[in-house]
């Protein structure tokens, strides 16, 4: 760890930018080294979608220091936005905007995905504010409990949504169900983006570049937000709420904007995943998903943008490749009758425990969070030294 620090000190100032640029170029060119569709490309697409999700949660937990355990809610709402507005789910309606080809002949609502992703961001931002409001008067663990409950409420709505009928006074949607419950809304329209052929599941490159575009957009937004006035206000309330308020940081607006922005990012990722997975199913929206995303940002380094990107990619490949494909039969070679996939959350937990012991500040730590953790250790060490004297 110290060597990395020393190395960093020796490198010229522009080198982090150059490295970031190289990584981005490599990411853009990556599909050309791969066939049109294989499981690696599939995992890459998922990893990029999770990068977006994790950066969104990082805005709330890493930047503003508000522990959100119900982040799955925004995955759900974003995915349902795709389900509602780009599928044949509402068969009684015939709305087509910005789509072409066979989609125009299908019943249901078929909006161009660009419209859907914007709608998802807006709807989730509003939902983020709704969940943010009751937590304003709360601190720490209590925020976690309220957000956790919010995630569960959304899940229960999703599961029972097929019997929740939208009241008849609502224009267009009156008399229609809210969701399709555990059966899921499927199929979802394949993406149609300007300048690209309609997407399909056999050609993953367009999906990959769309996900990459989304990830770069959110990455850039995160970098700009971190260094903005708003970003400083988030750090201020995370560091010391009383002090922040006494300097005139508007507590309500600052906190709510972190919830809204984080939620909008999660919603965009959800809208993408809904289309990519080709189903919006209530079973997808479990509490463990929230923990999975939280684990990504803790693994990478709370508040550290590049760390979070790394954490999201690492845990996606662990979950979708290493555990099911590489090590799945490992327990049986020791004569144990379980698959490793059954233990995946146990493995995530184990990794988090290991991280807490070996490198609590994350893989690529953020400066201030690192100090936060080092402080505690430093004090203990100083006390020990004092005692020995």
């Amino acid at each position, binding site marked *: 760890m110290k060597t990395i620090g020393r190395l960093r000190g020796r490198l010229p100032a522009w080198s982090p930018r150059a490295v970031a640029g190289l990584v981005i170029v490599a990411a853009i060119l990556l599909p050309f080294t791969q066939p049109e569709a294989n499981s690696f490309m599939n995992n890459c697409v998922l990893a990029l979608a999770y990068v977006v999700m994790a950066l969104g949660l990082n805005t709330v937990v890493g930047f503003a220091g508000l522990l959100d355990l119900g982040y799955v809610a925004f995955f759900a709402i974003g995915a349902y936005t795709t389900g509602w507005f780009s599928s044949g789910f509402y068969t009684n309606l015939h709305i087509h905007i910005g789509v072409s080809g066979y989609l125009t002949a299908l019943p249901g609502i078929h909006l161009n995905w660009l419209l859907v992703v914007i709608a998802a961001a807006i709807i989730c931002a509003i939902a983020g504010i709704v969940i943010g409001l009751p937590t304003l008067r709360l601190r720490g663990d209590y925020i976690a409990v309220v957000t956790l409950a919010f995630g569960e409420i959304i899940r229960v709505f999703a599961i029972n949504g097929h019997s929740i009928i939208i009241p008849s006074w609502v224009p267009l949607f009156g008399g229609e169900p809210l969701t399709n419950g555990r059966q899921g809304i499927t199929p979802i329209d394949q993406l149609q983006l300007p300048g690209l052929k309609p997407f399909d599941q056999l050609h993953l490159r367009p999906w990959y570049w769309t996900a990459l575009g989304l990830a770069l957009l959110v990455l850039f937004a995160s970098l700009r937000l971190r260094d903005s006035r708003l970003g400083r206000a988030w750090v201020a309330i995370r560091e010391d709420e009383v002090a922040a308020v*006494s*300097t005139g940081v508007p*507590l309500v607006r600052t906190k709510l904007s972190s919830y809204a922005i984080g939620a909008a990012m999660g919603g965009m990722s959800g809208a993408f995943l809904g289309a990519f997975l080709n189903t919006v199913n209530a079973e997808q929206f479990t509490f463990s998903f929230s923990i999975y995303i939280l684990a990504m940002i803790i693994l990478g380094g709370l508040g550290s943008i590049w760390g979070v990107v790394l954490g999201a990619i690492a845990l996606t490949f662990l979950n979708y490749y290493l555990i099911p494909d590489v090590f799945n039969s490992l327990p049986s070679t020791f004569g144990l009758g379980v698959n490793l996939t059954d233990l995946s959350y146990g493995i995530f937990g184990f990794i988090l425990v290991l991280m807490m012991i070996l490198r609590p500040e994350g893989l690529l730590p953020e400066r201030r969070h690192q100090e936060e953790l080092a*402080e505690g250790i430093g004090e203990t060490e100083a006390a020990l030294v004092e005692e020995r004297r």
Partner: protein
Amino acid sequence: MAMLEVESIEVFYGNIRALEGVSFTVDEGEVVTLLGANGAGKSTTLRTISGLLTASRGSIRFRGREIDRLRSEEVVALGISHSPEGRHCFQRMTVRENLDLGAYLRRDGEIEQDVERVYELFPRLAERRRQKAGTMSGGEQQMLAIGRALMARPELLLLDEPSMGIAPVLVDKIYETIEQISGDGMTILLVEQNANRALSVSDRGYVLETGRVVLSASAEQLGSDPEVQAAYLGGD
């Protein structure tokens, strides 16, 4: 008209009435001290003025304008700056970053100038401008808290216990600076346990007891009153 008029405010913490109708005024350019034992309601009064707490009854007027329903950022924007009890510096930020946050609501181009002015008032802060607030002594952090409050360019400065837990040498330094700030025309409302010290820089004082003002007089009168000395000022 007084700059700040606090009129029979009542404040509750849940069911407990912390202030039972506190009234006082602060005139422009004055230094006024609120004295009293622990739990008398001094800090509560300051927190209510700065919008951290809301009075359930009574009114607070700043330059004639009702401010008791305003949020704290609006109060800061009006020109009331609060250096909270226990200093509350941003521990992991540098001195400079703390001062910058003090100017959070300002959008003018004179922030740099005011930072220099704070460094002039507290040369110790200038020496430590790149140091993390958390690594400084209590007295230095108190200086930083006052400096940060000044960065908002207030017309009224609320100082809560600036001598609490601080080495006597630094208390002297801080009080010298408070006199200096006041000499430059700043209006200051001061809350102190260290009554003799506070009265030495004040024009007037109010004594609070269990959420009520029980005495109000000039600083000299309060300082020389033997009963007050014995009851509230640790009489020596």
